[in-house]
């Protein structure tokens, strides 16, 4: 495979599509699929055949605004239809070449205007199971450019220059990580992709793996070239069967096209990828635990250093990045580091994908330039809180993150600003809560999560989260005293500072941030024995019912 051959494929795909006058794209992501997108697609194919028009019906990955699903976009007009049922297929096809169907058309221009799509640029435009669709949108061009025109050092330099930081949550500079692995000595190195999206309430990585799997593969291949690795692993949750099957198909197609395997692009570069299944353990998102799981052991983290960059899988230098980080690589190599550097805010460059969920009008997947104000995401892109309720808090970073109160909507969304607010960027879950949510109960929910997901290796995390859960349960059912609150605060600090891995160190964050901004709710529970949101059942002795 050479650059010319890639262009040849792209050209033939474009010629093939030029035969059609219209393209009807049907979103087949989980949210739309659960509302009958498959039936709709079949109905559209039938209607298109019956009409005699030249129509291409294509299934695509996530288009974004999941709450309006099932979604259909008609190109080249870019008309977006929402809540499309199989019965509407005839009307949609009949409208082609004429006026759009008014009752199905939706205007989400406000939703899309503030967004910048880098990672999601192909989602909603390509069939994820067709490698040629991806190639036609400049796919694998970056890999070929890197292999044929750049040195490994040049690639690392370009990534460093872009200012990209790890999208898994930690925000470690990607370029720095790459250069550490590149400098590490050893004939065998590994590249690992973390697709263990355990954070409940987040589904960005799933959408990327399902909607645009080749982009992840391309990013990993470029990384392997840059650091000198020849073997890669993608670690995916077993709860994402569609992602697993799409990636399997994508890997097979890439091998067939000579984009994976030996002597890629006629160079001496060899690289192949294997898929590894997770088995439902949140702690496996932690890098050393994930590596242990790939080796077939229990996912228990170990102390660092040595970092995986020096001693990772089977003791070899290992580069480990998140799905979204790899998805950013190809566009950076293609467009240059400066291009990426110019997007975003001061110390947080580029864009970030968020899964916007909870009590908000437009739920779904969004991609915004970093530094965007929180209110722009909530009020403009998200369309505000529905049902006349009042916004209370925004939870970011999942069980490791915190709650940002409604008064702080003015902050910019960046690694540092969120950290200063007591939360973290995390992998990109953004859960909106209104006045029907009790913050103490939410904190209790997260601690329960961390308690059951703690691997049990170190005591602060294993015993600390259990004690915190007991204390929070007592506060929730109104049997706690003010001393308990003090004890809880004390315990938070202990668990935060003494735990071995990221899970334990960040587990108290939801409690600490709610204590910081919503302490009055805790006091209300303890002193006045009442729950301001009416969620906690104070009378019930042990079990807290919502």
């Amino acid at each position, binding site marked *: 495979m050479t650059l010319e051959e890639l262009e040849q494929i792209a050209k033939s795909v474009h010629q093939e599509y030029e035969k059609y006058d219209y393209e009807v794209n049907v979103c087949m992501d*989980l*949210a739309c*699929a*659960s*509302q009958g997108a498959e039936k709709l697609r079949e109905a559209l194919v039938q209607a298109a055949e019956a009409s005699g028009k030249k129509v291409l019906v294509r299934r695509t990955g996530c288009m974004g605004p*999941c*709450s309006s*699903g099932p979604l259909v976009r008609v190109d080249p007009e870019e008309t977006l239809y929402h809540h499309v049922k199989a019965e509407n297929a005839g009307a949609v096809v009949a409208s082609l070449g004429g006026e759009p169907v008014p009752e199905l058309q939706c205007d989400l221009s406000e939703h899309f205007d503030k967004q910048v799509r880098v990672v999601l640029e192909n989602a909603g435009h390509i069939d994820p199971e067709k490698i040629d669709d991806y190639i036609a949108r400049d796919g694998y061009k970056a890999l070929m450019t890197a292999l044929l025109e750049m040195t490994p050092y040049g690639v690392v330099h370009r990534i460093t220059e872009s200012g990209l930081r790890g999208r898994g949550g930690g925000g470690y500079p990607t370029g720095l990580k790459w250069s550490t692995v590149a400098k590490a000595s050893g004939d065998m190195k590994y590249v690992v992709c973390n697709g263990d*999206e*355990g*954070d*409940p*309430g*987040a*589904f960005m990585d*799933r959408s990327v793996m399902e909607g645009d799997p080749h982009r992840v593969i391309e990013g990993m291949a470029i990384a392997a070239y840059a650091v000198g690795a020849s073997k890669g692993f993608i670690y995916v949750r*077993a*709860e*994402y069967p569609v992602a697993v099957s799409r990636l399997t198909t994508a890997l097979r197609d890439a091998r067939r096209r000579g984009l994976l395997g030996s002597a890629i692009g006629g160079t001496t570069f060899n690289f192949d990828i294997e898929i*590894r*299944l*997770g*088995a*439902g*353990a*949140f702690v496996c998102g932690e890098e050393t635990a994930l590596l242990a*799981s*790939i*080796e*077939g*052991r*229990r*996912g228990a983290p170990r102390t660092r250093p040595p970092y995986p960059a020096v001693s990772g899988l089977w003791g070899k230098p290992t580069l480990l990045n998140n799905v979204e980080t790899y998805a950013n690589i190809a566009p950076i190599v293609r467009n240059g580091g400066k291009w990426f550097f110019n997007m975003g805010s001061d110390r947080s460059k580029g864009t970030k994908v968020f*899964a*916007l*969920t*909870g*009590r908000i009008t437009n*739920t*779904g*997947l969004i991609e915004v330039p970093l530094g965007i104000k929180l209110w722009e995401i909530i009020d403009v892109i998200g369309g505000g809180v529905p049902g006349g309720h009042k916004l209370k808090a925004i*939870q970011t970073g*999942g069980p490791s993150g915190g709650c940002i109160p409604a008064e702080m909507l003015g902050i910019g969304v960046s690694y540092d600003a969120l950290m200063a607010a007591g939360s973290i960027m995390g992998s990109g*879950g953004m*859960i909106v*809560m209104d006045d029907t*949510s009790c913050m103490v109960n*939410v904190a209790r*929910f*997260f601690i329960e*999560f961390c308690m059951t*997901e703690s*691997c049990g290796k170190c005591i602060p995390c294993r015993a600390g989260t259990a004690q915190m859960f007991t204390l929070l349960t007592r506060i929730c059912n109104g049997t706690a005293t003010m001393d308990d609150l003090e004890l809880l605060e004390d315990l938070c600090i202990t668990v935060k500072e003494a735990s071995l891995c990221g899970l334990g160190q960040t587990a108290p964050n939801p409690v600490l941030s709610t204590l910081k901004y919503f302490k009055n709710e805790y006091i209300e529970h303890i002193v006045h024995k009442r729950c301001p949101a009416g969620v906690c059942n104070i009378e019930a002795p042990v079990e807290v*019912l*919502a």
Partner: protein
Amino acid sequence: MRKNGFARYALIETLHTVQSSFGYLDDDAIRFVANSLRVPLSQAYGVVTFYHYFSLKPPGKHTMTVCAGTACYIKGADKLIATAEKRLGIAQGQTTKGGEISLMTARCVGACSRAPVVLCDGEVNGEMSGEQMIAQLERWSVE
């Protein structure tokens, strides 16, 4: 196992394959896998019990899985779980006496935009209400 060359590191892969064929992992299966891969039985058992995805008990004829992710929780998944527990007379993670219906919870299936989500025999149902869930349970118990 052959696909992975009987490699020890393929323990989790192998267990996945066994569970997807038989629905659960019994003692014989774990013993067989451990022997074949030359992995200590303690390690194999440790792995099985460590990961939530592996089950040591046979599942019921039908399985209802309520997503307990954060977005679903905010939208009342805990109420759904309580409703189902009351209706079936079992706690989450258990199966009804006749082996008819299993009630499970999941740590986020990634369909958060349609919370609360319930999986009925693996099929994703979004924006589930208590009534819809009871109706589904009724349909299963009639069969």
